[in-house]
């Protein structure tokens, strides 16, 4: 069954091409992991993983998997020439000390003013937080990569988060399978729509009001 909008590799490419050239970028678990597979090597982005690997890429044909070379979701990856390894203390000093140009994180909810909720739900009796709070607060730019709606169809881009927050006013860009949306001082500005998606489709799938591409500078 085909779903509307970009598939995961296409969505990951939308994130990848917006990453700062030559920047250091952390990728969270889940959908964001796919960005490492879609980056143009000429962008010279260096990926940081919370586990202490700095400088990795997605596996390609011919790569030998190494059980100790994995990403945040324990997926096999490969190291680039010039990679470095640190322990978790230094890995998170990097994240918390403001050294990451961007982090790409999954989310349960993002609000119109960039609040992020991505570690627990009101119904959850048990949650994991991992590096979400460290990264959301420490990275220079927080990019959310997620499905546009929750499994039950509820919009995840909301006027105000109803889920417990990870950090306030931290998200700068949201990339879903339907669109690329920037969090601006004026509101949520649609920067790009997936080919088969109209602005009205998008607004219908979104709780917070959106600014149409033509209406945004």
């Amino acid at each position, binding site marked *: 069954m085909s779903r509307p909008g970009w598939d995961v590799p296409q969505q990951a490419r939308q994130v990848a091409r917006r990453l700062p050239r030559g920047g250091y970028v952390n990728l969270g678990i889940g959908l964001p992991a796919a960005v490492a597979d879609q980056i143009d090597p000429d962008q010279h982005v260096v990926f940081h993983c919370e586990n202490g690997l700095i400088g990795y890429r997605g596996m390609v044909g011919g790569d030998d998997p*190494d059980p*100790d070379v994995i990403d945040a979701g324990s997926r096999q990856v490969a190291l680039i020439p010039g990679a470095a390894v640190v322990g978790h203390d230094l890995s*998170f000093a990097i994240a*918390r000390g403001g050294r990451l140009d961007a982090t790409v994180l999954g989310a349960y909810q993002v609000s119109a003013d960039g609040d992020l909720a991505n570690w627990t739900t009101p119904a959850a009796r*048990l949650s*994991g937080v991992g590096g979400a*709070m460290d990264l959301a607060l*420490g990275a220079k730019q927080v990019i959310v990569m997620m499905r546009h709606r929750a499994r039950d169809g509820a919009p995840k881009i909301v006027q105000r988060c109803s889920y417990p927050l990870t*950090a306030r006013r931290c998200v700068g860009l949201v990339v879903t399978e339907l669109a690329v949306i920037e969090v601006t001082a004026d509101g949520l500005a649609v920067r790009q729509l997936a080919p088969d998606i109209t602005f009205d489709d998008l607004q219908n799938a979104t709780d917070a009001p959106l600014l149409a591409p033509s209406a945004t500078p």
Partner: protein
Amino acid sequence: MTQRTESARVALNKLVQDPSDAVAGIRDGSVVLVGGWGGVGVPDVLIDAVARLGASGLVVATNNCGMGRPADVGLLFRNGQVGRVIATYPVHPAATDFLARFESGEVELELIPQGTLAERLRAAGAGLGGFFTPTGAGTLLTERRETRVIDGLEHVLEPPLRGDFALIRAERSDELGNLRFRYAARGLNPVMAMAARTTVVQVDELVPAGRIHPDDVHLPGIFVDRILVSGGVP
């Protein structure tokens, strides 16, 4: 007239032959820091030895709560040896033993951000009394923490996290306990070694003193009390 009463860490005779000797001294209620992140850097033989030891009511600090491997930290939950766990990502679907104990109320969970876990361990190792961090401020996870606005940003005061024992894993040790780790298997292992009164390392390989160049040591042996050479639980 010394101010600290911990037993001396000696550079000599750190090698232990038997897993049970490696974990000797862990008692009911001990605070045990368990290294490993996901499936890498896991001191499985030491965890297995704690399971055989049978101490209970342990306070365990760990990144995960088990990944379904034969002897990861999940084994301690399966055995009912854990009273409280401090963890960052206990929700892996394979952490079924933890889940069962958590659901039944037998295990109390303190969930903390991963960077705060690393920093609290390091603070203990560095002799600090605590630190202010903005991570987690204003969230459910830090509701009981003292807060302070520093440079316009809300911070929480986090205490050091000291262990009675650290169980860690390294790729290689020399006779003095100087350690090398391999890629992502480094993880929390070094800071946990810093944070514990007694640090026990499971290593794949032991080499003579001098074989690791001084500039190539990842963690100096001064943080290591006992060395067990073992390739892992079969």
